[in-house]
């Protein structure tokens, strides 16, 4: 039997490793990622202090969007209370990643800055971390909240709102990463996702390579 020369064995080994690497990555999943869903909509809102808050202001921050209105009295179906719990849990995130919380009102007709300020105060929102903000008018609200973020809401005959409790987590690049649409939002789960995204955002060198490989090979976390 003809013996392979050392360089032939080495070449075969290299080729085998390169060929097997993606398969091994998928099989053993050394790194998993939260999928990139879509580009988060561009937005320009007015916050509780009457200042403009834009999607550009939020770039570089993980941003948790919630959708509610300033006069809800019931914790806005868990949206505001979940955001309050997330705000409290931010201190536990390692490395203090840049995080913003934005409660977007879909009731611009009633949510003047003073109303939003009262809502922010009642929720315990920390200035600079958690903003309450509103689109310019009802048309802009419908397009942003209803269409771009896909949140269902409807004003009833008595003026009250019916709506789905939705939270959306967007990464620092402005990419939508997680949407919480089913049942009551779970703050611990949201904080877990924030922790994952923070680790991914900090990754450099070989780990950056591994994270991008995980995205490319769809190695998604549960």
């Amino acid at each position, binding site marked *: *039997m*003809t013996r392979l020369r050392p360089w032939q064995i080495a070449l*075969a080994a*290299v*080729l*085998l490793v*390169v*060929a*097997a*690497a*993606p*398969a091994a990555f998928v099989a053993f999943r050394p790194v998993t990622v939260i999928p*990139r869903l*879509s*580009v*988060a*909509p*561009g*937005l*320009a809102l007015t916050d509780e202090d009457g200042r*403009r808050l*834009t*999607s*550009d202001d939020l*770039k*570089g921050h993980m941003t948790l969007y919630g959708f509610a209105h300033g006069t809800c009295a019931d914790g806005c179906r868990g949206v505001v209370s979940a955001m309050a719990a997330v705000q409290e849990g931010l201190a536990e995130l390692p490395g203090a990643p840049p995080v913003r919380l934005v409660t977007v009102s879909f009731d611009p007709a009633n949510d003047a800055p003073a109303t939003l300020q009262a809502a922010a105060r009642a929720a315990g929102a920390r200035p600079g971390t958690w903003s309450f903000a509103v689109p*310019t008018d009802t048309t802009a609200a419908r*397009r*942003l909240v209803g269409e*771009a973020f896909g949140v269902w809401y409807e004003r009833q005959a008595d003026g009250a709102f019916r709506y789905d409790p939705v939270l959306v987590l967007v990464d620092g*690049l*402005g*990419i939508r990463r997680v949407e919480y649409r089913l049942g009551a939002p779970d703050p611990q789960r949201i904080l877990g996702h924030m922790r994952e995204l923070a680790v991914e955002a900090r990754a*450099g*060198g070989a780990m*950056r*390579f591994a*994270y*991008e*490989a*995980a*995205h*490319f*090979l*769809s190695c998604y976390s549960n």
Partner: protein
Amino acid sequence: MTDSIAGPRETPPSARRGRPRPALLWASTALLVALAAAGGLVVGRAGAGDAGALHGSLIEPPMPVPEFTLASGDGPVSSADLRGTVTVLFFGYTFCPDICPFTLQRLRQARELLGPAGDGVRVVFVSVDPERDTPERATAYARGFDPSFTGLSGSPQAIADVASSFGIFFARAAPQEDTDGGNAAGGDRAGGDDDFYLVDHSATILALDRDGRLRLIWGGPATAEEMAADLRFLLSD
């Protein structure tokens, strides 16, 4: 006629057993090389997101974007028309005093730096000021920087939808105090003073791959050289 059997030239079974079969060997090698190439492609593509390699932020895997149709001075342009080339999208407006002309100038330089390969890059300027920027005006403005550039406008609703789908915000800026009787920002004017206003907008530049999917985002200022380097990667992708 009877075929003769060349007995002496036939390899005895005993000798043939231990010798590798060339066809099998070549097939195995070819398969291994093909697998390695595929693996290398996967690893190479995934690794291209290394912050040290690219200046913009690579979107891996490329992200589909909604279909759209806007208007140029030459007629409608749809997202489907942008496929087949690497497309660089920038949202601005023709009365923009600073960031828009600087950005378009840098994009022209980046395209020039690519040499002949630059023909594979299409720069598209989308106006976020549809009230003042007609399709003709947007096209003429873009071509003022480079005749190959495309300038688009459309209805306010269409522009808002397209911009939002790319994560771009825009809003008319609050009027500024005009103490010297002129435009403090030094911008062009449209008609009388009442018509003059600025538009706040994202300065983000986006690159789509040849399939029209979002592939790269330049969120911060990038030089022409940096953009050219990133575009070179997208062209070879």
